């Protein structure tokens, strides 16, 4: 699948996880990478260019920190402007039919917080429902989120390397059409989907 990664991070210069993940994605052949805040620092979105971009790809990945159970402001702006009626949805809006999409998220709180019993009272996938519904409306295939919990302490705790490795193998699987899309749509999380493959790759 032609894969497009959108990074939405207002301060990549001080990012510990998202920026390395973006760099990692850039290092993989056949993945298109766009730094949204880098391209539109004053929020003047080039709608035509963005529509062209998503039209030319089969998988659209949103890489971002979780801000107030949602995305940073510019990505919301991107949704509002780019997913136009007649393009992305509506009677004549079929540009995105069947495309694959998911959120690659970094979360401040630990994984336990994102459970029905935890502090946030719901799984991350449930909290990201607006994005899933958006994808549904655009007739896209929404996959479970790929997440790193407790992201603020990941570097100190040495969890960043394995996450990056898994991220790389996820993108490659997507690119090479080896990801089980049906299972990925049904799951709660994409984490662990390619863990085996990642371990193999690391060994090589």
């Amino acid at each position, binding site marked *: 699948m032609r894969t497009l990664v959108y990074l939405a991070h*207002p*301060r990549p210069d*001080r990012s510990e996880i998202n920026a390395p993940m973006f760099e990692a994605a850039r290092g993989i052949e056949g993945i298109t990478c766009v730094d949204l*805040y880098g391209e539109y*620092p004053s929020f003047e979105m080039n709608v035509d260019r963005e529509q062209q971009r998503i039209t030319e790809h089969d998988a659209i990945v949103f890489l971002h920190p979780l801000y107030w159970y949602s995305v*940073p402001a510019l990505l919301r702006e991107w949704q509002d402007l780019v997913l136009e009626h007649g393009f992305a949805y509506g009677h004549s809006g079929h540009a995105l039919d069947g495309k694959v999409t998911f959120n690659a998220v970094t979360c401040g709180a630990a994984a336990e917080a994102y459970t029905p019993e935890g502090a946030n009272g719901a799984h991350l996938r449930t909290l990201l429902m607006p994005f899933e519904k958006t994808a549904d409306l655009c007739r896209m295939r929404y996959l479970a989120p790929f997440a790193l919990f407790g992201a*603020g302490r990941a570097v100190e705790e040495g969890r960043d390397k394995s996450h990056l490795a898994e991220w790389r193998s996820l993108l490659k699987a997507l690119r090479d059409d080896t990801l089980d899309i049906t299972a990925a749509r049904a799951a709660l999380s994409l984490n662990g989907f390619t863990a085996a493959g990642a371990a193999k790759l690391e060994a090589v």
Partner: protein
Amino acid sequence: MDLLAAGFVYLVAAVIAVPLAKRLGLGSVLGYLIAGLVIGPVLGVVGGETVDIQHFAEFGVVMMLFLVGLELQPAMLWRMRAQLLGLGGMQVLGTAVLIAAAALVFGVAWQASLALGMILALSSTAIVLQTLGEKGLMPTAGGKGSFSVLLTQDIAVIPMLALMPLLAVNAVAGGHDGHGDSGHGAPAADAHGHGHGAPTLFDTLPDWAQAVAVLLIIGGIIVAGRTVIRPVFRFIAEARLREIFTAAALMLVIGIALLMNYVGLSPALGTFLAGVVLSDSEYRHELESDIEPFKGLLLGLFFITVGAGIDFQLLLSNPVGLVGLALGLMALKAGVLYVLGTGFGLRGADRWLFSLGLAQAGEFAFVLFGFAAGAGILGAEVIKPMTLVVALTMLLTPLLFILYEKVLAPRAVRTEDRAADEIDEAGSIVVAGIGRVGQIITRMLVTNGHKVTVLDHDPETIENLSRIGFRAYYGDATRPDLLHSAGLEDAKLFVAALDDREKQTELVHHVAKTYPEVTIHARAHDRHHVYELERAGAHLAQRETFEGALAMGRDAMTAIGYHPFRAEAASRTFRSHDREALDGLRESWNESGVSKSYIDAMRAHSQTLFELMKADRHDTHDRSERGWTPPPKGDASL
């Protein structure tokens, strides 16, 4: 009495009578007439020379028609064609026919009757427009109807001037008048006597050749107006000498008048045509401003001479008859207007305003009387009493307006305002100065569909802008009269974008004082200029270099490796802090200018900014950096 002394007497009379008349709500035309009446028949200070002065002053009429032409953009006329031809045309024709019929009944010869009908069908543009404007009645349906009729009448003067010679009893081909007399104070016999003028080369041509020549000359004026006059004015404008531009404007008007005289056509017709041709040129407002004072003075002088020529004995000998004639004339005119108003959908108060407001005879009557006398159509026995009657109708007009306001309007229902606004209102935004700054502002407003009137003193820029469809006018924007003719009193917004710092402040000061209703935005050179402009009355002053420099600072940061959004954020922080500094230092500057306390305050502000930016570079989470930072590491609540 020599000419200088006579001129002094005239001026004294005008200076006293005109402001008084205006104060009393009688309008300036009546003021001039009364001034003439006082120095002539009443005091007898002036006498014989009035006729000479009148011929000289008649040139004011030529100028007036040039200005009328300048006001008449072909596009506007075309848009108003239904109103002009229908309402206006029928008013002129209907009234003229009825008055002519009445004159026939009184035993006047048919040619004279027809001339009287045409002359008296006209109303007083000067009095009516001024009164409607003063009372704020222009936007009402009645006011708009009146405007259309007055405009038609102004245009109708041209065919009337052309028709008059044909009515002459002793018709002479190519009859002409003394309007174009360039002011040597030529004796009346020479100026008005038919066929006594020196025969010109033109007169020796056969009739058909004369007709061809006339057509060629009219065509020549139109073609020259489009092709030659503009480059010439541009050449003159580039010299940046105001008096030379004024001289050129006068030269144009006088030249055309002379040419028309030479071929035996009305000079008024020629200058009117030239005015129409130049009405959509970028020099329109400047020409208007330059000619206007001459026209005003000459016309004023003309009205004084009319007043001085009034036969007071005549009025005293038959007051009832003359007042009765004046009332009858007004009743007839009002009746025609009432019927037409009804036919064109005016009701209630609007119909009354329309019928009563235009019931008087106009100042053009005095001009046309002189013209008709010259052509031998009307004799003194008709003109003398009729001049009185016209003056009386004008004198009664303010009373009719009072009748309308106090009695008729409160009782009547107003016609509902039509949705479509047919009259071309003045531009709602005026931009002064169309250099590097003004151009961007104007383009932005124009592309968003707003009407912008642009003033600048660079002829080349102005011509280029007109070529791409801008309403751009040549002229020095600091001139009060130019601002006025650009329609500043109706403007919503005035943008002062002059390059010259001192002129800019002066301009803002003048506009703020003269047009307190208008919002003023001003381009400033630096922060001190911002304070100066604010003090002069600007509602908003922007440093012209600030936003551009800020963008360059941001781009510089991006170029040396900052993330674009980081650079954008830095420029935003810088901007808001700089604005704060601007606000914080205002008081200090206003009190003492660039004093020690001002400099101290400025230093303090730069220090805060430096610390603000420095804090952002540290990897800490402190209050000075509010944007997009993760919560502090190890916050247990997460």
